[in-house]
């Protein structure tokens, strides 16, 4: 006896709570907002890629500069070493000449 009205009540409640149609403009608003968000996301993605590309270019320029500077210093160092070696060779040659001449003088004095 207690259950019967409850079942009818539940039926009534089920009818009262049938789904209502969505407002006519809802889908249009959703699609418009979705389009706007997609464009915004695409734009921000493009900006991110542009920034990344700019950063990579900057890193390449700076890295290239550093590498060029190191190579230039190495080249200069090598050049300086070569010049020192030539100077040493010239000095050694001159010393040998002087030594030979001195040896000739000593021999002449002894005779």
């Amino acid at each position, binding site marked *: 006896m207690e259950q019967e009205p409850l079942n009818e009540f539940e039926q009534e*409640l089920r009818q009262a*709570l049938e789904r209502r149609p969505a407002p006519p403009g809802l*889908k249009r608003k959703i699609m418009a907002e979705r389009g706007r968000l997609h464009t915004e996301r695409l734009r921000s993605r493009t900006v991110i890629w542009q920034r990344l590309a700019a950063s990579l270019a900057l890193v390449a320029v700076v890295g290239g500069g550093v590498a060029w500077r190191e190579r230039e210093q190495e080249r200069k160092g090598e050049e300086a070493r070569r010049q020192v070696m030539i100077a040493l060779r010239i000095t050694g040659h001159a010393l040998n000449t002087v030594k030979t001449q001195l040896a000739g003088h000593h021999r002449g004095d002894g005779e």
Partner: protein
Amino acid sequence: MAHEWQPDFEQLVDEHQSMVFSLAARMTGDRGLAEEVAQDVFLELDRHLRRMESPSHVCFWLRRVTMSRSTDALRRRRVRCTDLWIEIEERHGASGEEKESPLGARLEQMLATLPEPQRAALILRYQEDLTPEEIAATLDAPLATVKSQLQRGLKLLRAKAQSQLKQFVRVKR
């Protein structure tokens, strides 16, 4: 294998907008707020579309997110329960296209005065025809809690109906 189903967003909006809007409207009691909630829910669906595995997964996800967003929106707006039925009458139920009985309208108004968890359980039970187990999964609540909310909500609603709707009581006797 799981990703053979290709969801079409526009079609999903067409299919589910009525469900999402009705859930949000009945939870918030505010047609404008319900529209905002529905829009947010669908835009969130768009962001998560790749993770959707099947039509039933979409349906479950939409119900769950709608209930959660409605509760959040309700808390943000701090709409008092006592005002809800007035708003429903003014904004939601007063549309010319409504075809429900005056008794149904009154029941819906009374439903809006119930505590939020009981209202949520009853809406899912009687609007969406979900079982207590499905409601528990949707609301992420223990089954026993959901059963108790359904029972208490129905009891409260019935008591309100019996005291306020003489017509209903007369008819049933």
